[in-house]
């Protein structure tokens, strides 16, 4: 450990305290101060998380930066946090995205500005808490608490149908989570501890595992989201303010994937192996069917939302094809490759979908429409913007050299070894993804100037350039050189694969 102060706790609580401070102080000191204040908290949190990365030991799968304090002594619930190679990339993604969200809301939000920024900072703390928790109840608290700021963000600063969208979002995710809570309590009644690592060792029969697996599935499938429980996502995305959409797509969806890796696969390995056909089918349906659905969307945000669901199908495919590929090749490293592919896909999707939502946000701030038909010829008046959006659209369709390619390629490769047809269906996305993204891009950006509003557009300013450059660099760097990510994950994924194939049945 390089530092003596509790750096992980600081990363969680610093933005929360900062958010409360911004909310309380913004009425007195005005917008400008609140802006710089929130940026200060977001950037400092990002630097703290970089410090985590700097001191991270990639050679071990153990939890690092661990902190443990008794919290509710009567039931052995601890404030136990720590990070491993699966959590760390997601934490970095969270802190990075929050900085961009703060910048994106810089001048756009006028109503209750301090509360807007504060809500995102508090949300950031909760999300980091989810990725760090080593105690199931602590995890659950962060997991649920996260809904409250998001509920307010969509409901207060959202579009015309925001109330419907935000209540749907809340009820859907709450529905999944409460059954997860029952499952956690059941495991506790068997293992006698709420620590996640001791839950990994809980002895459970196959039928128990299946029930628990379905309870977890409900929670994580709603969050990720998988077909057929995805319908909240397009509504929430369309109505949310730009910052809300970015956080939803970039980080919140990843919670579902993280949940599969932290809970479903290690706690119920036998049920996961027995039900992998179900998960693979649902993933493939999401990839292909939702890809077609995306193709016909008229609303840019909705299109990107559906594209997110389709891309998250890759994540679950990568995770669950791991069982079959081990059966087909007898090589566990192939399974690890599928899981790493899913992880890379999650990270990369965080950057790309966030970037695309920001692109839509830039257009929406100027024209106040998300309909594709209201645009056309944007490239003539906003050339810099068009170039950035081109890069992100290409990345979304999985162009080699961008981060979108790495994850998809690994997952398809793994799927190919498990079953050729999986790979064929999954590879459809390369065609579909290119079709819906580039077709949208063509209709919005190319062509003659569609209407006078487009003719009067101003190109992106320095603040927006800064946001897009940061994202563009990340997308390209991880596309060309994803090795740092593999380094971080490697040991932890190997340990996870080991747990997945250690049967709990005697």
């Amino acid at each position: 450990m390089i530092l003596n102060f509790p750096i992980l706790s600081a990363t969680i609580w610093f933005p929360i305290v900062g958010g409360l401070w911004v909310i309380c102080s913004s009425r007195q000191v005005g917008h400008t101060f609140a802006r710089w204040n929130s940026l200060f908290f977001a950037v400092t949190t990002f630097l703290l998380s970089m410090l985590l990365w700097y001191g991270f030991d990639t050679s071990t799968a153990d939890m690092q930066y661990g902190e443990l304090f008794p919290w509710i002594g009567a039931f052995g619930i601890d404030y136990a946090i720590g990070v491993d190679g699966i959590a760390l990339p997601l934490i970095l993604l969270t802190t990075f995205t929050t900085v961009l969200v703060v910048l994106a809301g810089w001048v756009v939000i006028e109503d209750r500005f301090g509360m807007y920024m504060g809500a995102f900072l508090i949300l950031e703390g909760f999300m980091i808490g989810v990725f760090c928790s080593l105690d199931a109840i602590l995890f659950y608290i962060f997991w649920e608490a996260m809904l409250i700021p998001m509920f307010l963000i969509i409901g207060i600063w959202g579009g015309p149908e925001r109330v419907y969208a935000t209540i749907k979002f809340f009820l859907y995710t709450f529905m999944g989570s409460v059954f997860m809570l029952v499952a956690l309590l059941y495991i506790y009644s068997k293992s006698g501890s709420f620590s996640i690592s001791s839950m990994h060792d809980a002895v459970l029969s196959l039928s128990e595992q299946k029930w628990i697996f379905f309870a977890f599935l409900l929670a994580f499938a709603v969050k990720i989201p998988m077909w057929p429980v995805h319908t909240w996502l397009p509504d929430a995305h369309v109505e949310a303010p730009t910052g809300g959409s970015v956080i939803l797509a970039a980080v919140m969806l990843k919670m579902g994937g993280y949940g599969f890796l932290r809970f479903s696969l290690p706690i119920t390995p036998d049920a996961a192996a027995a039900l992998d056909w179900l998960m693979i089918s649902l993933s493939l349906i999401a990839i292909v069917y939702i890809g077609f659905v995306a193709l016909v969307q008229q609303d840019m945000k909705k299109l990107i939302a559906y594209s997110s669901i389709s891309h998250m199908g890759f994540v679950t495919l990568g995770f669950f094809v791991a069982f079959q590929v081990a059966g087909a090749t007898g090589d566990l490293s192939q399974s690890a490759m599928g899981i790493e592919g899913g992880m890379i896909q999650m990270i990369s999707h965080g950057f790309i979908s966030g970037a695309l939502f920001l692109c839509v946000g830039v257009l929406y701030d100027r024209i106040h429409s998300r309909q594709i038909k209201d645009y056309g010829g944007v490239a003539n008046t906003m050339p810099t913007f068009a170039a950035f959006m081109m890069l992100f659209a290409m990345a979304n369709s999985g162009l080699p050299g961008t981060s979108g390619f790495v994850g998809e390629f690994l997952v398809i490769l793994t799927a190919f070894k498990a079953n050729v047809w999986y790979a064929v269906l999954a590879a459809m996305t390369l065609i579909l993804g290119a079709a819906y993204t580039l077709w949208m891009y063509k209709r919005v950006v190319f062509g003659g100037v569609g209407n006078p509003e487009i003719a009067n557009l101003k190109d992106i300013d320095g603040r927006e350039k800064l946001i897009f450059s940061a994202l563009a660099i990340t997308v390209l760097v991880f596309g060309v050189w994803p090795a740092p990510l593999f380094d971080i994950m490697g040991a932890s994924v190997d340990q996870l694969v080991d747990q997945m194939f250690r049967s709990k049945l005697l």
Partner: protein
Amino acid sequence: MHEFTLVLPEATLAAMACIVLLVSVLRSSRSQAFTFGVAVVAVLLVLAGLAFTFPTNSEDAFNGTFRADAMGSALKIFLMGIVLCSFFYAREYFMHRERLMEDFLILALFAALGMMVLISAHSLLTIYLGLELLSLCLYAMVAMDRDSILASEAAIKYFVLGALASGMLLYGMSMLYGVTGSLDLGLIAKQTVEAEDHILFIFGLVFLLIGIAFKFGVAPFHMWVPDVYQGAPTPVTLFVGSAPKLAAFAMALRLLADTLNGLSDHWQQMVLLLAVTSMAIGNIVAIAQTNLKRMLAYSTVAHMGYLFLGILTASSLGYAASMFYVIVYALMSMGAFGAIIILATATNESDQLQDFAGLATRSPWMAFMMLILMFSLAGVPPFAGFWAKWFVLKEVVAAGYTWLAAIAVFFSLIGVYYYLRVVKLIYFDRAEVSTAIPDTTAGGRLVFSLNGLTILVLGLFPGSLMSMCLAVMLTHTG
């Protein structure tokens, strides 16, 4: 210890209630503040007495009709704390009205006396005595606003149904007495263990349970709850909705867990049915309400269902979970009604959901407190209401009723909707009338803020209250 010291808090309360009565008669009607001061001092004295006489082990007084034990004293301390807060809320309400608040204070003090007797009752007779003292005061309090048709209707409904429930309870008691020849709970408990399946026992049990269910307001004995909550003046609703639940919990525990423990196989099934019906009816019907007080009434019905889940496990951990639940629930419900009182003006009771629209722009702090209260009632972490549900569910799962826990969370999911609707009104909608928050006293604001913040702090650090409930219950059931 001398018998009298055991009932010192009760004796103090009785004496002080009489003094408040005298003060309000002798002083001119303009000096409400003085009467209020005396009533507050009365409650503080009782609290001091409770702390001073906190028993380490259980002792009986007056030939075993009264039992002083840790569980009783702990509940009484919370009870008196809630009574104290309700006085401050009531002052806010009566400040804007011509009606005098002396009646409220006196009746509330006598009702509190009834509750304290009920909590410590260790004989069928004392139970009935405490229950009737409590109920009669409540009937009168509901009818206090004599010009209101709604209040009169509510009071009559409450009285008629309450009398019926008392009759049922007495009938059940008479059967127990018939079988055992004793009124003492300890002696009855011994005989239930010996003669397990005596049919009269089970018969008596059914009637006792009806009496208990009525007091809690669990479905299908909840018919009085919505009318009384809506019709009564808001401070009375606040009082009826919080403090008596603690007393009812003690009564349920002494009758079911202590006395009829030998019949637990039988009453567990009945309690289970009551709990599930309550959760279903309360949560579903609350969705259709437009009056906040009525909505909270149905939410009470649902919450009492969750409370019953802890009792039905028939284990000391389950009882501790229920005790935690009832304390947290009383705090939350007090806060929710407190918000209605603070927003009320002389002409507008502000008990319609619409009255809360756009509260976030009118008063951000009050809106934030309401946010805490609503999410806590819905059972969303990190607020105390989550831990209450969590604790109960944990014990239900530990007792082997995992399917029941699944049903319970399903209904809580339905419940979330109507609490979210209140948050939606407060934060997402614009105010129809952009009136400022009516004048409030510093005391009222302080109590309301403390109330909301307690919910938040208990949500972050529920450990000590949980440990207290556990310790009390483990010593109670031995």
